[in-house]
């Protein structure tokens, strides 16, 4: 609930007529005002507390979004540890809850990997073969959720999101693309797709309500290359061949935009997926294309100073 996406999902769930009580846990407090949901601030490594909250609440539906993207809100080492610990605690406890009817977990298209010769635009039938730590972390969450679902005898939906990008979303890709000068691959400059945070949240809520069993890719239509994105944002593209990516990573990190392995892979090998099944299975389609999401990333809201309507007494 403490991430931008988690807060958005909680807000949307509050508006759903089929949702009764809502409770959420996270290391950070919610980013939006929630009216019905209760929030528990828990350290991801505090398994005992997480388990007791989940057992006491006895949920019917669990929307598990405790996935920390490396260099988004956490250091890569912490991100992997927290993601694994939270999945074991929450999903393990949920599997023992008698009222449980469905599990929805947030995953990503990183799970397909971009090994040489891998499918460029995989659909859900392609066997995951992650090639980055974040991809492996996501696949591990899917595996734990699958085991929990099997124990509880309930369907599990793995919502495989494209990189979530938005003006207010803490994401390493968004930060990198907004640097004044952005490293791009001179040799490849492959296409990638993203998803807007609002569209991702809508899909997760739809997944929680449909009780779909299996994975579903959620991705904005279309694709862009890094060079195109940089030009759309009127930044300077710095073409790199290979070895200097390490140096570029250090420089970008110094400017507050580290390049974790899954983002470096995206820039060198591309990352898209076939999202056509989502419309059929979840009944929702992204509002924004990949190009529109990238454009929105570069558009900053103008600050408008409002005058008070009444003079202070």
């Amino acid at each position: 609930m403490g991430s931008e996406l988690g807060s958005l999902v909680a807000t949307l769930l509050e508006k759903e007529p089929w949702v009764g009580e809502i409770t959420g846990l996270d290391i950070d407090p919610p980013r939006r005002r929630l009216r019905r949901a209760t929030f528990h601030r828990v350290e991801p490594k505090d398994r005992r507390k997480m388990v007791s909250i989940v057992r006491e609440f006895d949920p019917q539906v669990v929307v598990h979004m405790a996935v920390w993207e490396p260099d988004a809100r956490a250091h890569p080492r912490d991100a992997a540890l927290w993601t694994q610990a939270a999945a074991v605690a929450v999903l393990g406890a949920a599997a023992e809850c008698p009222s449980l009817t469905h599990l929805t977990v947030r995953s990503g298209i990183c799970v397909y990997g971009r090994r040489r010769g891998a499918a460029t635009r995989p659909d859900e039938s392609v066997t995951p073969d992650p090639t980055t730590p974040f991809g492996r972390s996501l696949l591990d969450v899917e595996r734990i959720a699958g085991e929990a679902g099997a124990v509880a005898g309930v369907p599990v939906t793995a919502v495989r999101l494209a990189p979530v990008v938005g003006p207010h979303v803490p994401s390493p890709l968004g930060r990198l693309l907004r640097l004044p000068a952005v490293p791009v691959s001179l040799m490849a400059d492959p296409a990638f797709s993203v998803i807007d945070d609002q569209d991702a949240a809508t899909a997760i809520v739809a997944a929680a309500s449909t009780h779909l069993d299996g994975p579903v890719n959620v991705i904005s239509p279309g694709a862009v290359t890094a060079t195109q994105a940089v030009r759309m944002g009127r930044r300077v593209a710095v073409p790199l061949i290979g070895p200097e990516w390490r140096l570029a990573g250090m420089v970008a990190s110094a400017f507050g935009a580290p390049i974790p392995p899954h983002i470096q892979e995206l820039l060198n090998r591309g990352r898209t997926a076939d999202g056509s099944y989502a419309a059929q299975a979840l009944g929702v389609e992204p509002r924004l294309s990949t190009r529109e999401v990238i454009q929105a990333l570069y558009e900053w809201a103008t600050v408008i100073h409002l005058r008070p309507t009444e003079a202070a007494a």
Partner: protein
Amino acid sequence: MNVAAAVRRQVNGTNEVDAWGMDHDVAAVARSLAVLRWDITVGGDQHVPSDGPALLVANRRVLAGTPLLVAAAVGRATGRAVRFAGITDIAPIGPALRRVGGVIARPDEVAGLLRAGELPAVWCQPHIGFGHRVGPAPTPYLAAALDVRAPILPVAVIAPPLARRVRLEVGPAIAQPRRPGPWALAELADDVRAAIQRMVDEASPPSWLVPG
């Protein structure tokens, strides 16, 4: 094609690149440049649907640059971008070929293209030796087309190695089996190969053996 507009799109980043990496402007330029290399005649292009998915299955001639030739020829004749399968996935050659419509040779890749309403082209196994023998049709790709219910069009490439004058003949869609199964798929592959072989035999006068 408006070259100035295409260049402007490349400069300001508004050029269209799809998920497989094809840049429509670059692909159009490549199709235009193909006439410098080949003098192409295309027959039967009316069999290619104006939109929607279809799988082109062509015979492959050694050293004839068949993938690029088919993509350029059918693309010019129909105005549709042909996605030729079989590129390498190593930079910079792979990404460069992706820009003009290349995709890697995987049945799930071709299935994805068909689901998206594209026009992928795949190849029979090349025949090494004398004569105009067409090799077996690639059954995994035919199965992908059957799954998507896309028409399968045989394409005969009549092009001696390194020749300038080449001819392509696109045949009508092959009748698809009513019942799925490995036997039906094998028969479909035989039908596709036979259709291509027939067109090659009909359109291969001895003069084609002489490089143009």
